[in-house]
């Protein structure tokens, strides 16, 4: 199977109070298209930094990130934005919906950016899939946490991404809602054939993916395949 994401010798350092702080050091791995993956590790291990680098939200100090055959290093911010719009979907711990847009408008934004047609009906379909067809005209503040995350799921899948990055997708939800959102995430993912990369410290969630990458102190310390198909 072809690789959708290849990370080679990835290092990220920050300058802080005159000292160099190494957050990630010499990380190497590849992710094959259509697979589900989890990056796990304790707080401060560098997993969110890794996600940011993989998704082209941040720039590496050294090493390369290759996404869908495109080397992200050396790309301008606007080129990275186009890549995100074209190939990447995001789910965030705190949902990150645009507060001034209704649920359906939030879902429509990636499609509108691509200049696609029949946007509204496609967004309505997606909202229906996440069970919020009747809440499309509500603003994020009028939705519960679980509902907001479901809108976020619909938005993430709206541009049919090749790869979906989820940062602690259940971090702000209770157990019952978490379960519903996770099920929805995996179902939609399977249906769309999208590659999934979940960053979490929820081992139960990680266990539902096909592969677990463990990070500690900025190093990749384990790379395990699970029994999930």
């Amino acid at each position, binding site marked *: 199977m072809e690789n959708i994401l290849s990370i080679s010798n990835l290092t990220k350092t920050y300058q802080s109070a005159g000292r160099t702080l190494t957050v990630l050091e010499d990380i190497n791995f590849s992710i094959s298209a259509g697979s589900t993956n989890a990056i796990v590790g304790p707080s401060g291990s560098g997993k*969110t930094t890794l*996600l*940011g680098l993989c998704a082209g*939200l*941040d720039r590496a100090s050294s090493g390369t990130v*290759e996404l*869908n*055959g*495109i*080397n992200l290093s050396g*790309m301008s*911010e*606007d*080129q990275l*934005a*186009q*890549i*995100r*719009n*074209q190939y990447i979907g*995001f789910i*965030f711990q705190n949902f*990150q*919906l*645009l*507060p*001034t*847009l209704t649920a359906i*408008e939030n879902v429509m*934004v*990636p499609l*509108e*950016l*691509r*200049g696609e047609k029949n946007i509204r009906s496609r967004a309505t379909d997606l909202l229906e899939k996440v069970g919020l067809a009747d809440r499309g005209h509500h*603003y994020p503040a009028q939705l519960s946490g679980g509902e907001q995350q479901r809108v976020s799921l619909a*938005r993430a899948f709206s541009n049919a991404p090749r790869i979906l990055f989820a*940062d602690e997708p259940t971090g702000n939800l209770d157990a019952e809602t978490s379960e519903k959102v996770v099920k929805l995430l995996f179902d939609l993912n399977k249906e769309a054939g999208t590659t999934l990369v979940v960053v979490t410290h929820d081992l139960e969630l990680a266990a539902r993916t096909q592969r677990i990458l463990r990070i500690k102190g900025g190093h990749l310390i384990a790379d395990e395949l699970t029994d999930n198909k």
Partner: protein
Amino acid sequence: MENTGLITRRKVNIRWLFEMALRDSRKNRSRLLLFISSIIFGIAALVAIYSFRYNLQKDIDAQAATLVGADLVISGNKPAATSIKPLLDSLGDKRSEERSFASMIFFPKGKGTRLVQVRALTGAYPYYGSLETEPASAGQDFKKGQMALVDKTLALQFNVRVNDSVKVGEMTFVVAGILDKAPGQTGISSSVAPIVYIPLHFLEQTGLQKKGSRINYSYFYKYDQPVDIDKLVKRIEPRTDKAEMNIETVKSRKENTGRSFGDLTRFLSLVGFIALLLGCVGVASAIHIYIREKIASIAIMRCLGVKAFEAFLIYLIQIIGIGIIGSVSGAALGSVIQHVLPVVMRDFLPITMSTDISWLAVGQGILLGVIISVLFALLPLIAIRNISPLNTLRADYSDVSLSRDPLRWFVYLLIVIFVMTFTFFQLDSWIASIFFTIGILIAFLILSFTAWLLMKLMRIFIKSTWGYLFRQGFANLYRPNNQTIILIVSIGLSTAFICTLFFIQSILMGQVKLSSSGNQSNMILFDIQTNQEDSLAKLTRQQHLPVMQQVPIVAIRLEKINNKTQADVKKDSTLHIPVRAFTYEYRVTYRDSLSATEKITDGKWVGKADASEDIPVSIEQNFSRRNHVKVGDHLTFNVQGVSMSTVVASIRQVNWNKIQTNFQIVFPKGVLEDAPQFHVLLTHVPSAAVSAQYQKAVVQRFPNVSIIDLGLILNVVDELLDKIGYVIRFMSAFSIITGIVVLIASVRISKYQRIRESVLLRTIGASRRQIFTITALEYLFLGVLSALTGIVIAVSGTWLLAKYSFEIPFTINLIPALILFFIVSALTVIIGLLNGRGALNRPPLEILRAN
């Protein structure tokens, strides 16, 4: 690896950007409107002034003929030479003649005397418009007999009615009517120099037309058939120039009136522009905080693939949209306010004003509003380009600085260029617009520096030993998202502006009052003939009044400076001699000693002329500086047709502030004694009653002698300053209102910032009183410091104006400053508390949800 082929290039979808701008603004529109309300009053002020200017221009064009009253006016300050007489008699189809001069009049009924402008008229002038009188027919009828028209200010002052009598010189006239308006006359001109019309053929009998009296001779012409007046003027101008007479036409009056009101409206539009600038600072600050709050949304958009420039455009569209709304509202308000301006400026207007909506003014106002709100909003907007999508993952990333973009220097430059260009169009001088811009910049810098210093000092001086409420209240001044700079700049600038106006007005008034106090001379008698000099002095002493000074005055003109004539100066600008040095009529005196107000700064005082040499004269230092004349230079004067060669023997410093006769040029004794001259006498009258009695005695025995009563001048100056002050205060009210709006907007923005904190404090048990005290302390300190800095700037500005512009001693009247200080401080606290009261009265959770 070749990447680019895999990225689909996407065009910027302008329509979508507009849609996003609209969507994104949904929940913020009321706040955006609040931000933009800061510019509404500035725009309103400018649109009102512009509309006034355009309407005025239109009205002047339409009514110019009634300002002049004739097609052509030729005038001079001496009787027409015989060589020009035939020309004067040949012009026009209808002719009128007028002689005007200052003279005393006497009302026998109330025994009142006053210096007025006497106009002796013959013919049917004015041909356009009319002498508006009560009764209306009096305007023409008074010429039929021994009758006069008396200005309404005189009628009011002396309770004069129709059929009363007025004594002008040695003749008594019946008051035929009360003059309401004469061509070109304004409310101000009639209070400074009220007019009395008499028929010209009685002038001789009044005895006022004596040698030495300064009479202005005017000839009015009306053409029944249309004539090319420009062509006519071109043809006759060489001859009238030679006869030292001026020509005025409807066209030239139109230009002159337009120009003088152009200056006034330009000045007032600068005052309005300051209000607008003030509002723009408010906008920039509000947008800065708005964008800071939008960082998360922008980061999400960036995550979803929105390019940096697109994100920038989304917010730029919002600003332009809201700028248009603000400017249109401002323009609408301005169009309403312009109806008030003719009332405000009534006393300065020589014409009837219309108040049509000027679409040109409205268009200019809207354009200006949009440009300036975008320019100032650009400062925070450009930072949008730097907002990273990483903010979606890390909340702490949002401390990204919004103010360190190097492009901001370019925006600053644009703002400075804009301000300078705008002021250039108002002032018509690059030097003046550079000074104005630098002045505004310095005021901004001082206020910003004060705010910065305050924040630094607060960090250092707040002690942990202070009570919690004090620590919290003062710490609010420097904590993140504070409003210290914007509040100090906006409140301080408004205070400085208003305070400077008060200071200048009180200094000017003080100056006039000072001159009239104590035992200094406060009454000036002039136009005294040589043969009247001694008997008038005797009369003065008989009235138990001192003769403080008696001075002969001779009117002369300058012909050459070091053998250079006016023609040479016109040709060679390197001589640095202004042409007006030759056109001015100098009133000089002759004496053998210096007066108490004079000091020699260069050369040697020579009190007596030696017939064999050039006449040694003494010149005043400003004259020397202005005309680049120094000791030893040669000046040739024309003394009533006789050429006199002189040499500059000394340069004098003169204290012009004393009420006494002072001169630019002083001749030694032994030269001018036989030249045509008149005399001036100075005395001191202790009271209004003595003044009236003395004036009456003088007018009865010496009707040609004019008297300037300083008490009366004081009243006129007071009235004049009051009226000018009223107009300026009216315009500066826009700055004050803008200041208040910016204050309210800033405080409301800080309310959004602080609401969580107040609610948190409420949640953990802070009482209403504690939160109230914290807020009150913060705003009290802000108000006090802003007002204080504003007043300090006003003091410095006033000092500069007093020293370099008005050239008068600098004094400060602290009472208006103190009143202003308390009002500004209190207002700041009140607005701060009013805005915060929501957080005090409602349950914490309700507020959190609402915000």
